[in-house]
């Protein structure tokens, strides 16, 4: 079965959902239906069957008649310098079409001293002519011709530096090349797609690095049994399913009558398979299971046989639903979940403390918010509550670089935001702890506690949490 899983994620095959990256960097989520045609707008269209059997990650260029040929990568000049030679040195002739557009043999300049900005006049080819050429062919070959023509008609191309020429070429390639990459639809790919092509709010402004941090801090692993709120359209559940490989259980608590799990449409699981792992339950059912249990009138098998067919089917469906709801309610009542992952705009201050009793000992509590202030408020509440150890707020931000040796620098702009998480551990505080501290021999104990906590604060290495609590410390005027 693990062999099967490896195969499934490795090779492009029919009925998969996949992510298409276009030369512009644009993303599409596509379903690979046998015999279908995928239209990438100005980047052309292709027959789906032609990409079957290649590994995910393979790039293609579009030929005439909606056929495709594999190419090494979607990268152009700047991104993939040096890569080209390595690929062609191999035994394979499939990748002959490596150079989408070789830089034409033209003169270049050592610097831009003689380059004078005259605006669009420098380009002698007109928009109408380009449009005409675009109409004449939808293959990558046609795109190449346009770029070649544009370079030839550029009056000052030879006044540019080599680097600047390459940059120009890359820019044009991103626009006119008919190429694409077919990628496996990972949770990161889906997140990037929702963020970039839909809107950041769909994923509550969550970044890839924050999603990764949440999955690690929540200790998501195959076989775990997690309690989840997911207001990112099912993205969190998607990422968890991916990591768990279908082993374990996710109990999803949702605010509305029905959960929004639209992301799972493209997860590759059938509904039956999903039902086995993902149990959904609304907030009312979660907090008031005793009143939400479904008591269905029970027919005896004989009575059931006598029912007319449609009525019998209806009854069986109802029975199945009732069973599933009641099982989930029972699961929630038993509690002892392996962690809480809370991604919701519902105020965590009002909700998380009421969910804590359902989480097992030493299991992680991970709460996401795009606003740090909300988590600050929550952590004050959790610190007082004492059932969550070391609640702190974590922020992670990636800087991406233009990765060209000799031209290595951070990108000039990048997406901002990305959200924050609060991570703590569910613990069982002792009830009599404070009583001991405040009761008998109060003064001596308090003094010792204070000494311990000041000593700890001084060397900043050891602070026993309870000792540093305001409740346990003496508060009296100095001197």
């Amino acid at each position, binding site marked *: *079965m693990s062999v099967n*899983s*490896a195969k499934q*994620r*490795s090779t492009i095959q029919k009925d998969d959902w996949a992510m298409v990256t276009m030369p512009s960097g644009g993303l599409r989520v596509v379903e690979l239906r046998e015999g279908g045609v995928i239209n990438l707008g100005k980047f052309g269209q292709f027959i789906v069957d032609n990409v079957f*059997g290649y590994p*995910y990650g393979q*790039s293609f260029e579009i030929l005439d008649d909606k056929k495709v040929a594999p190419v*090494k*990568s979607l990268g152009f000049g700047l991104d993939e310098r040096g*890569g080209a030679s390595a690929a062609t040195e*191999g035994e*394979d002739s*499939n990748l002959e079409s490596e150079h989408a557009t070789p830089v034409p043999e033209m003169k270049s300049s050592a610097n831009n001293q003689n380059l004078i900005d005259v605006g669009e006049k420098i380009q002698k080819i007109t928009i109408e002519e380009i449009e005409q050429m675009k109409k004449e062919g939808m293959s990558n070959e046609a795109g190449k011709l346009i770029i070649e023509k544009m370079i030839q008609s550029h009056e000052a191309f030879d006044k540019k530096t080599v680097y600047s020429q390459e940059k120009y070429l890359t820019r044009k390639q991103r626009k006119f090349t008919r190429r694409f990459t077919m990628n*496996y639809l990972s949770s990161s790919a889906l997140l990037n797609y929702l963020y970039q092509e839909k809107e950041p709010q769909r994923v509550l402004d969550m970044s*890839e690095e924050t999603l*990764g941090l949440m999955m*690690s*801090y929540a200790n998501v*692993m195959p*076989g775990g049994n997690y309690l989840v709120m997911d207001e990112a359209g099912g993205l969190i559940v998607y990422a968890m399913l991916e990591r768990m*490989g279908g*082993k*374990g259980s996710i109990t999803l608590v949702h605010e509305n009558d029905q959960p929004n799990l639209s992301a799972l449409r493209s*997860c*590759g*699981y*059938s509904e039956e*398979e999903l039902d*086995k792992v993902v149990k959904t339950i609304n907030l009312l059912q979660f907090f008031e299971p005793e009143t939400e249990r479904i008591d269905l009138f029970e027919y005896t098998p004989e009575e059931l046989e006598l029912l007319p067919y449609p009525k019998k089917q209806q009854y069986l469906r109802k029975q199945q639903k009732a069973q599933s709801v009641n099982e989930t309610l029972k699961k929630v009542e038993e509690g002892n979940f392996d962690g809480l992952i809370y991604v919701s705009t519902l105020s965590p201050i009002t909700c998380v403390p009421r969910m804590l009793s359902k989480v*097992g*000992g*030493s299991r992680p509590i991970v709460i996401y918010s795009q606003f*740090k*202030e909300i*988590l600050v408020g929550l952590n*004050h509440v959790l610190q007082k509550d004492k059932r969550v*150890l070391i609640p702190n707020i*974590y*922020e*992670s*931000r990636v800087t*991406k670089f233009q*990765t060209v*040796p*000799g031209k290595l620098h951070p990108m000039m702009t990048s997406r901002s935001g990305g959200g924050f998480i609060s991570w703590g551990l569910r*613990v069982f505080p*002792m009830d009599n702890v404070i009583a001991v501290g405040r009761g008998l021999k109060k003064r001596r*104990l308090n003094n010792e*506690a204070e000494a311990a906590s000041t000593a*700890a604060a001084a060397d900043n*290495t*050891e*602070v*026993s*949490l*309870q000792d540093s609590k*305001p409740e346990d410390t003496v*508060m009296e*005027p100095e001197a």
Partner: protein
Amino acid sequence: MNMKANNNNISDSTSNKMSFLKYKDTIEENDLVLAFIGRENIKPIKIKLGESLNTRYGVFPHDSMIGLKYGSQIISPKGYGFIYLLYPTPELWTLSLPHRTQIVYTPDSSYIIQRLNVINGSRVIEAGTGSGSFSHSFARTIGEEGKLFSYEFHEPRFKQAKLEFEDHNLNNFIITNRDVCNDGFEISNEPNINADIVFLDLPAPWEAIPHLKNVISNNKKVGICCFSPCIEQVVKTVESLQENGWIEIEMTSIMAKKWESRKEMVRKVDDALERLRDVMKRQKEEKDYGFNPFGKGRRVMEGDSEFEWFEVSKTGPELKSHTSYLTFAYFVPTINKE
């Protein structure tokens, strides 16, 4: 995604051994417990009858921990000071492990795992093992269907890591004492390593990259991350990746911050004015105490209910402003159709 029908809840299996690949609820003899003594002081202890844990808050006998639930708080025999008994996870282990080398911290490791799509069943190459911090995250994430191939050229570190992995019941790893830069990655007891994830934390990753072609998957996209602190290392790494046919090369770095929730007193200017008037008046009347809106001269605890407070956040005194550069790339095997 791969789906398996079995829906086994591994949560409570008291007879099972502690392992980083699953949870258990109750502490038994020979289990590993992370004793939380303070924020910066988490101590791994192996539970043994008759032994005890010594802390500045007193002595905690192991016998008293057996039978307790993970997550329990226990009080020192002295009557004050507490510790918590925590279940080991890779993230807590990272905070408590004995350092033998610089380690990979959670903000970096979690991003690498997410971005390279390390999941249940992944086959991971890791070189070098170092202190074994990242190894635990990999092992946890790939589960029992995955396999971790870890390489360490320093023999004492290799031995130590091997003992630790066995002791922690990471049963999905093969660790090899090897200098991969010179001797490559092939191992005799596993002819098909078939890795789809590679993590190189080496002084000269560019020397190891050419050896990878024999051990990475030949039918699946392979992801790599090279972890180097210096920019000069990155340049050589990028050149080597390009020469060896890797694509989509991108260098990144992570900046992570930990924020603590704090309270800052709301000090209003009108109160300050009122206090000044009061001070002036008292100078004439020679009275000691008067209007004291901000608790001057008193020891005021943060959050004291006599005062008004802002809820604020603050980072610790020190920031990890640079760990390493993370250089990502992919290798897509060539498939000859027909």
